């Protein structure tokens, strides 16, 4: 869709009223006789002979074409034009329903436009101007269409439902906060469409067939844009925020690992990403709890990104989506491994780039590590020997074998064991909070929906990228019998049989469980190497879920959850900006989310063992480092051209009108004096007394 130029009148009534009064007045004044200065002369004889414009004695004279009149009319027209406060709209003018969608993802924090204000701040300013413009129809306009405001990053948030109050809309825009999350517009579009559906044309001011006008302020780096489409009747205006040549270097990922042999030693791994057109060199600095501990011995060289910086926005293969035949975009990566650091205590490890660029959010990445501690494992019920052997072999603080009855009495203390390995029969109907590896389908977890059995199954698909299946090969797995389940949508299936899930991960509040739908001995799995790896992965993954030796890396949009002792009612959370807020603990767990900003989150609570503390490091969403603004969007198969990348999309015209009026005033002055210009007499007195009248004498 191409941009249209439109003029918006801020105060049309004033200008129109002025013009309506003054223009006829000016013309009437030209009809009227001039007001003249009076003086006496010896005789009007010669004057009457000379005068051209002595007119009849009627009060009105014939209107004659006059340069002065036209100049004055033009001057009045420009003044009236200026009083209407015209503004030129560089975007779309809309009289229907409008949805203002503002990208608040991490890349919008870049300050590449003016070096001080972030893209989001500029986008908010432009959006407010746009709201002014939408509601600036004045008294001559019809009722303005309804407008709503949505912000989005990983998720969308309705800041203001459809309203006709420009004040509410502007306040809603002001409330939009910067996040460090990714850009996913799908939710925002769904929300917009849901609200924009016209069910009552009389009150909503639009017809059912009339689509909403979507106005998007973004840098165009939106991950899920290719999966969306513009529906019939919808219009999309894309206001580009950011420079097309924006370059950025950031830390894409961070990981830390304690040594298996020396738990007090941590090794930190970092991936540096370059989205600029040139390779860069930078130093990296590692700090633990704010104390600098290490710097890269020599600058790290990060290769340049390959293929175009700008182009159509969308997924990382945006160029392909736009129909281009050029190679897909690929940022430059460099992986850095820091030398091992001795850190026997818990802490937050931060790695920073010793380099400034326009987006500082991703110049620092953190990860929280807890003190080295080994797992406490409970084996409940009569599990098979193969599993028992594997679990026993896992290096743990303790492995305790319990009967179902013992577990029912002791297992209520959720913090006594990190992982529970159990058969379904040994588990109670209501699972206590904890993390479970269940070899079979338990009854205590909702959403599994068992409906019968299946036989002779093999693996059809597996999510190899899942940590549970790391280094696990299931190609040769054959299952004699399994329980058929129809899991709910929030149950994650990681191994699929022909038509039934074989391994699922279910999370129900404080309960997390990895469930196999078959018993190991009903398959040939125990005889395969992958079984050992899977059991070990499952125990470690479950143990690491909330309280492992080395924490996972978190990103905005996710939820943080901390297990507490059962009696804890409240915990305090310290946010990255230093503010604290109390959180209610429920069923031995404290949850906070979705995360908005990157940084360190710290939970504190007090239980019978004293004050407890857990720290989480949240890093900028992946993919947000590419800050080069897209000059067009590929929404599905359609391309939306961007408008107004820099500065306001609404530019004032009245100063130009005023300047033109001043020019006309000067011209009018010049024309008037040209008509009446008298050359000054040369010399105060003539040299000869009769010189002044000598021509008359000679005549």
């Amino acid at each position, binding site marked *: 869709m191409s941009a249209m130029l439109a003029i918006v009148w801020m105060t049309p009534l004033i200008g129109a009223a002025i013009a309506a009064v003054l223009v006829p007045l000016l013309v009437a004044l030209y009809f009227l006789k001039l007001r003249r200065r009076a003086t006496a002369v010896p005789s*009007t004889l010669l004057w009457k002979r000379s005068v051209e414009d002595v007119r009849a004695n009627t009060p009105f004279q014939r209107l004659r074409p006059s340069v002065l009149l036209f100049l004055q009319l033009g001057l009045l027209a420009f003044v009236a034009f200026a009083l209407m406060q015209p503004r030129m709209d560089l975007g779309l003018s809309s009289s229907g329903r409008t949805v203002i969608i503002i990208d608040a993802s991490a890349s919008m924090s870049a300050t590449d436009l003016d070096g001080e204000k972030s893209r989001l701040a500029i986008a908010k300013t432009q959006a407010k101007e746009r709201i002014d413009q939408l509601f600036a129809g004045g008294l001559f306009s019809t009722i303005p269409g309804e407008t709503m405001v949505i912000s989005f990053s990983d998720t969308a948030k309705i800041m203001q439902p459809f309203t006709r109050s420009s004040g509410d809309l502007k306040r809603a825009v002001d409330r939009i906060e910067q996040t460090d999350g990714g850009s996913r517009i799908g939710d925002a579009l769904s929300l917009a469409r849901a609200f924009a559906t016209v069910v009552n044309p009389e009150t909503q001011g639009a017809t059912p067939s009339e689509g909403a006008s979507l106005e998007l302020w973004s840098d165009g780096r939106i991950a899920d844009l290719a999966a969306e489409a513009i529906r019939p009747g919808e219009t999309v205006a894309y206001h580009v925020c950011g420079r097309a040549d924006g370059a950025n270097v950031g830390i894409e990922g961070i990981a830390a690992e304690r040594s298996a042999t020396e738990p007090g030693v941590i090794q930190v791994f970092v991936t540096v990403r370059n989205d600029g057109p040139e390779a860069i060199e930078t130093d990296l600095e590692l700090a633990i709890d704010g104390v600098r501990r290490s710097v890269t011995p020599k600058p790290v060289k990060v290769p340049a990104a390959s293929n175009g910086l700008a182009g159509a926005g969308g997924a990382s293969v945006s160029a392909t989506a736009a129909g281009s035949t050029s190679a897909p975009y690929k940022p430059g990566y460099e992986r850095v491994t820091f030398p091992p650091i001795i850190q026997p205590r818990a802490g937050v490890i931060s790695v920073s780039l010793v380099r400034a660029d326009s987006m500082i959010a991703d110049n620092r990445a953190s990860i929280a590590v807890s003190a080295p501690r080994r797992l406490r494992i409970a084996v409940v019920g009569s599990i098979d020997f193969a599993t028992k052997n594997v679990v026993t072999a896992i290096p743990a603080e303790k492995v305790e074998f319990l009967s179902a009855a013992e577990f029912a009495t002791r297992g209520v203390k959720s913090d006594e064991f990190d992982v529970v390995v159990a058969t379904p029969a040994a588990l109670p109907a209501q699972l206590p909070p904890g993390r479970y590896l269940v070899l079979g389908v338990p009854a205590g977890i909702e959403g599994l929906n068992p409906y019968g059995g299946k036989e002779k199954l093999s693996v059809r698909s597996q999510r190899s990228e899942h940590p549970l299946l790391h280094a696990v090969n299931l190609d040769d797995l054959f299952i004699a019998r399994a329980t058929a389940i129809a899991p709910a949508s929030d149950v994650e299936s990681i191994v699929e049989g022909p038509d039934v899930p074989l391994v699922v991960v279910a999370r129900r509040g404080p309960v997390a469980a990895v469930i196999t739908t078959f018993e190991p001995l009903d398959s040939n799995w125990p005889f395969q190497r992958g079984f050992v790896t899977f059991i070990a992965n499952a125990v470690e993954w479950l143990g690491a879920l909330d309280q492992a030796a080395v924490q996972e890396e978190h990103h905005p949009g996710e939820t943080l959850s901390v297990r507490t002792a059962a009696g804890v009612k409240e915990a305090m959370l310290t946010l990255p900006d230093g503010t604290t807020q109390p959180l209610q603990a429920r069923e031995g767990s404290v949850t906070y989310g979705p995360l908005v900003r990157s940084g360190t989150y710290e939970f504190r609570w007090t239980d019978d063992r004293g004050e407890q503390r857990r720290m989480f490091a949240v890093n900028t969403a992946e993919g947000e480092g590419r800050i080069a603004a897209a000059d067009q969007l590929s929404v599905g198969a359609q391309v939306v051209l961007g408008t107004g990348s820099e500065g306001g999309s609404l530019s004032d015209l009245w100063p130009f009108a005023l300047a033109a009026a001043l020019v006309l005033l000067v011209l009018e002055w010049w024309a008037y004096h040209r008509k009446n210009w008298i050359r000054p007499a040369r010399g105060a007195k003539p040299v000869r007394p009769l010189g002044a009248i000598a021509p*008359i004498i000679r005549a």
Partner: protein
Amino acid sequence: MSLFFQGQPNRKRPERVDDLIDAALMARIGQLDVVSRKIFTGKIQGERRSKRRGQSVEFADFRPYVHGDDLRFIDWNIFGRLDRLFLKIFLEEEDLSLVIAIDTSASMDWGDPNKMVFAQRLAMALGYIGLVNHNRVTIAAFGGEGGMQKISNLRGRRKTSEMGKWILNLKSGGTGSFEESMKALALARQGRGVMVVVSDFLIKDGYEKGLRYVAGRGYDLWCMQTLAPQEIDPGAHGLVGDWRLTDAEDRDEAEVTASPGLVEQYRANLGAWCAGLRDFAIRRSIMHMVVDTSTEIDALLLEYLRQRGLVR
């Protein structure tokens, strides 16, 4: 912009005779005399040579005695030699009649320097020249409210004060007819001489009929057309913009927008008006002269009028 067109004309009036003519000017013009291009007979013997033979010391001719001739003029020496009576004929010296007619109509009370004041000073100077040369000086004022006034037959330097006071008391204003005034002057003519009419000649009814009465009737006629600088070039004296001009005499109004084109047109019309008067004068042996009121009186008399032959 000139003060005049701001509505503040210079109305300073002469209050004493000295304001009309000071001692220095009197000294400079004392030796001047009014010259007539024609020699006319006067009523009494004056200091002026006349064509008429008479009783003077300058011998002109002889003629045979006829009955009735004055025996005192018989040349007895010729009678002794020739035994015939011859009469000696002398060139008779006559007095000169100088009539100065001043236009005192309202249109003259205008300008800076004021035309009326200028006419008074010019009349005073010319009258003084006439008095000191024993001419018969008559000052007439026409066009004023009280009709024509005049003071007649002044002769001799001692009448200077009387003439000056009379001129000082002249009041401008009125719309008297130029034609009637000239007719009255022509009828009241006593002898022959020089007549100087000082006026702006901006006469809506025309100056021709009036001048015809006095032209060729024994007067050597001079028309001194006095114009103020503001009349000659109004544009250079601040007449810019839109004006309502009121005629000083008949209160007629003319609305003008004083554009350069209009001012130029006015100057052309003024030139044509003056040229018309000059042509009329040439045809009737009248001397015509346009005088700017900013001209100094002594310069006018000692240079211009001397060159033109009114005084010598």
